């Protein structure tokens, strides 16, 4: 284990955590509106998986997308500005929280129709194969998307055509208020879904960033070897409500359950690994956190000070004009 490596993973996870805590504050202050879905508790999945790929690989996710976007290296200022609906946002304020896109970093977007982006991921992989590039595609989605028809159609195409896509199911046990047992017939083994397409599938502890990275590395190798897609079921948990409209523990789960999972907070786990393996001290971590706090404060300031889009922007970007 390498000190710099682990500290940088910690920094990324802490950045997401801090960024989203701030977003929640800003939402309370009505600086941010619409739907805001926090990734808090699931940071290890995005950070671990994305740490395993190259800059020219593709990443695509659902509407709970801040974590994937930041893990991909997008500028926190531009992301926060997007949440504020400002002209300086990643998408000029047109996309918002659910539709972050950073094409330069091959972050191909967050999508708000559950499961609807899974065929897109398959298409990105198709393009890579068609152009004989050796890129892979990381496609993140919640377990709630697994029963959806478009997901299955995409799984079948990806397997049939051996496309270089890695499906990462973020199984946080709930789709809104519905526990996985009431949504997926074979809830005890979601990965089985992928296997029924001949897709190699494995489950991983989604709270352990190193385990997620290791499995993703394995998946990338398999995909590069031309054996086609890989399916990862990352067991994780959402510490906050489904969205800002939903309390942290609604009727559908108890305070105790949330507390139980918080004991396996992915940041806590990595902290312990770092400290017990003497790869860093509490002080090192505090330093990182201070630095990140400043970054996030600066992001908020940038968003605050940025202008809203000009009225004419309503009509631009509908079509590519030649």
């Amino acid at each position, binding site marked *: 284990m390498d000190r710099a490596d682990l500290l940088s993973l910690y920094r990324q996870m802490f950045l997401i955590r801090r960024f989203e805590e701030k977003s929640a504050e800003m939402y309370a202050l009505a600086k941010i*509106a*619409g739907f805001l879905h926090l990734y808090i508790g699931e940071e290890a999945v995005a950070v671990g998986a994305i740490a395993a790929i190259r800059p020219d690989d593709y990443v695509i996710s659902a509407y709970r997308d801040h974590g994937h976007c930041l893990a991909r290296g997008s500028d926190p200022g531009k992301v926060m500005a997007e949440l504020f*609906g400002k002209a300086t946002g990643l998408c000029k304020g*047109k996309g*918002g929280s659910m539709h972050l896109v950073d094409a330069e970093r091959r972050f191909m977007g967050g999508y708000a*129709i559950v499961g609807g982006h899974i065929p897109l991921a398959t298409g990105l992989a198709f393009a890579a194969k068609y152009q004989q590039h050796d890129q892979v595609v990381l496609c993140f989605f919640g377990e709630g*998307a697994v029963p959806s028809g478009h997901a299955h159609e995409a799984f079948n195409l990806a397997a049939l055509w051996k496309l270089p896509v890695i499906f990462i199911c973020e199984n946080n046990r709930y789709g809104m208020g*519905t526990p996985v047992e009431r949504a997926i017939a074979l809830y005890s083994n979601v990965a089985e879904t992928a296997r029924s397409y001949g897709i190699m599938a494995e489950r991983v502890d989604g709270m352990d960033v190193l385990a997620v990275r290791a499995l993703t590395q394995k998946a990338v190798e398999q995909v590069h070897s031309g054996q086609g897609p890989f399916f990862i079921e990352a067991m994780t948990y959402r510490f906050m409500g489904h969205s800002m409209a939903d309390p942290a523990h609604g*009727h559908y789960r108890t305070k105790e359950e949330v507390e139980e999972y918080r004991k396996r907070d992915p940041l806590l786990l990595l902290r312990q690994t770092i400290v017990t393996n003497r790869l860093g001290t509490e002080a090192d971590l505090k330093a990182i956190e201070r630095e990140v706090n400043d970054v996030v404060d600066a992001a908020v300031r940038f968003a605050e000070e940025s202008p809203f889009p000009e009225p004419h922007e309503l009509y631009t970007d509908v079509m590519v004009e030649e």
Partner: protein
Amino acid sequence: MPQELTYREALNQAMREEMRRDPRVFLIGEEVGYYQGAFKVSKGFVEEFGPQRVLDTPITEAGFTGLAIGAAMAGLRPIVELMTFNFGILALDQIVNNAAKIRYMSGGQLSVPMVIRGPGSAAHQLAAQHSQSLEAWFCHVPGLKVIAPATPHDAKGLLKSAIRDPNPVIFIEAQLLYGTKGQVGDGEFTIPIGQAAVKRSGRDVTIVAYSKMLLVALEAAEALSKDGLQAEVIDPRTLKPLDLTTIVESVKKTGRLVIVEEGWRFCGLGAQIADSVYAAALEYLDAPIIRVTGEDVPMPYSRPLEDAAIPDKARVIAAVRRVTYRT
């Protein structure tokens, strides 16, 4: 005596009364049960009617809508709640190719008595994939009835009629209406499908508006009356079959028509209403019909852009002034 209810409560009452009245009626959709509905419309239902009649589904709109259609074919009376109509696009094949056509294809042997309901149109800053008004699509399809009530009273009376209707009915609500209040006649009442309501009478101009846009139109009419312009405001309430008679009568009186709709302009329902009115009353029109519509763009997230994309009071007032040459 009439009760003051929110639109949400009115829908809740309508479904509750009908489910008590008819054991064949059941509610199915995402989060309708233990979660009490994504927008809390089915509050208390799973507690009263049990999970056999209040079914939480996986996120599979085609699957559970198709399941409900099959159940209706077998004699049940499903109410499908779409968390929003945006997701209904995934069930559109089931709705259009099955629900709307099964009676015809079977030569009248089968029928599909069901309601497909949920919020349409934009809320606040939900962005492009969550802010669409798709009523024109459903109105285009033979075999479907389409309802879009604007007030708690109309919501209750029309939902009860929809549940009792032996045909598939698309019932379009609005997230921004759920919290609005209004007087609702209490006890047992229904409102016939296919009847427009004159929400405000006036002689100078006719404004046709439905769902959220009715409230915008009424505000505009109020403001206009202050400087002596009396607008007659008509809410079709049922979009299909459309009560053209009521609209045309009003236009024959006022000679001027403004149609307000939140959806995209091109091929919106307003175009059909205009076409029908021109065909029925061309010689009575003292000015071309003016449509006030949503802008033809995907809905942006940013607040100022979103505000600019949706018709508001000012735009309706401006349209009325133009159509009455009072600019």
